[in-house]
C-alpha cells in the first residue's frame, strides 16, 4: 500500500534530513530509492516535491552541496550543515511527539516495520 500524498505532507522535510543525517552525502535519485527501499515501497517521493525541498533546504543553510562530474553530467551531492544537524534533531523529536500523540488519539500501538 502506497501512502497518500496528503498523509505524507509535512513529513518530507524530516525524512530527507534524517536520511542525510544517517548518510554522509547523497544525491537526489539515491534519496528517492533509499526511501522506497526502507519503507518497502510504501513511501514514494516524487521528483516534483523532492527538488523544491532540497532547494529550500540549501537556501536556508541546512544542507551544503558539492558537485561531481559523472562522465558528461554533473551530480549534486547534498550533506547536512551544522544547522542542518540541529534542525534534524528538532524535526525528529517533533515527529516522535506527534506520532505518540496520534497513537494516543487513535488508541493504537505503533508497530515497527
Amino acid at each position, binding site marked *: 500500500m502506497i501512502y497518500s500524498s496528503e498523509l505524507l505532507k509535512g513529513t518530507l522535510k524530516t525524512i530527507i534530513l534524517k536520511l542525510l543525517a544517517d548518510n554522509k552525502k547523497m*544525491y*537526489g*535519485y539515491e534519496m528517492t530509492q533509499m526511501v522506497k527501499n526502507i519503507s518497502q515501497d510504501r513511501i514514494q517521493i*516524487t*521528483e*516534483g*516535491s523532492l*527538488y*523544491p525541498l*532540497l*532547494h*529550500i533546504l540549501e*537556501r*536556508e543553510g541546512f544542507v551544503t552541496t558539492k*558537485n561531481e562530474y*559523472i*562522465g*558528461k*553530467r*554533473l*551530480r*549534486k551531492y547534498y550533506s547536512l550543515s551544522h544547522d542542518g544537524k540541529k534542525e534534524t534533531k528538532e524535526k525528529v523529536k517533533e515527529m516522535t511527539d506527534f506520532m505518540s500523540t496520534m497513537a494516543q488519539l487513535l488508541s493504537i500501538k505503533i508497530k515497527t516495520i
Partner: protein
Amino acid sequence: MYTLTEEQIDYIRNKIEIEGIESEGLKSSLLDHICCLIENKFTYDQNFESVVNEIITQFYKTGLRGIESDIALLINFKNSNVMKFLLTLTGLISSALFLTGSFFKIINWQEPATICIYLAFIIAIIVLLPLLGIVKAKERKLNSEKLLIYCGTVVGILYLISMFLLLKHSSLASELWLITLFISLFVFTPAFYFTGIKKPGLKFNTSIITILIVVFIGIQFSLTNLRQKKDDDLKLPIAQSIKVISKH
C-alpha cells in the same frame, strides 16, 4: 544496468531545456536524475525517446517547468514570512517610540521627546508603510487591487510626511497636506469605492468605509486648514486693536 551514450545524454539535456527550465542547478539535477532512472530501469528492447517522455511526465503533471514554479513559490512564501516579521517588528518599534515620545512631551522632557517622535516618523515613513504596501500588494492577484494598495500606501506616506513637517513648523507642511487631501479625496477614495463595489460580498463594507474615509478627510481638513484660517482671522483684529491703542 544500461549505459547511456553521450548523444542520449544530450537528447535528455535538450528535452529539459525545451521544457523551459531556467536554473542551471535544477537542470543538472534533473538531468542526472533522469539518467539514473534510465540506467537502472531501461531495457534495450524499449524505445529510448518514449521512455524519456514517460519519465518527464511522471516527474510533474504540468511538465518540468512546474518544479521550477514550485521552487519560486516556496521562496516567495519564505520571503513574505520574513517581510511580515519585519513589518510587525517595525510597527511595534514605531508605536513604542510614538508613545514614549508623547509621554516625554507630557512631562516636559523636550529633547528625548523630539528624538523619539522624529525616529518614530522616520521608521514609519521609510520602512513600515512601504513594507505594508508590498506585503498587502503581494496578497492580491488583480493588478487593479495592487494599484489601489500602492495608491493607499503613497497617501499614507504623504500624510505622515506632512504631519512630520507640521511638527517641525515647516512652510512646506500646508502645501503637502493639501496635496495629500486632494489625492485621498479625488484619487484614492473613488478608486477604493469602485474597486470594492464591484464585489457582491463587499458592497456594504465598501460603502461604509468610503463614507468613513470622506468623514475622516473632512475632519482633518477642518481641524487643520479651516482652524488655521480662523486663527489668522482672529490675529488680524487683535493686531489692529494693538495699533489703535499704541496710537492713543
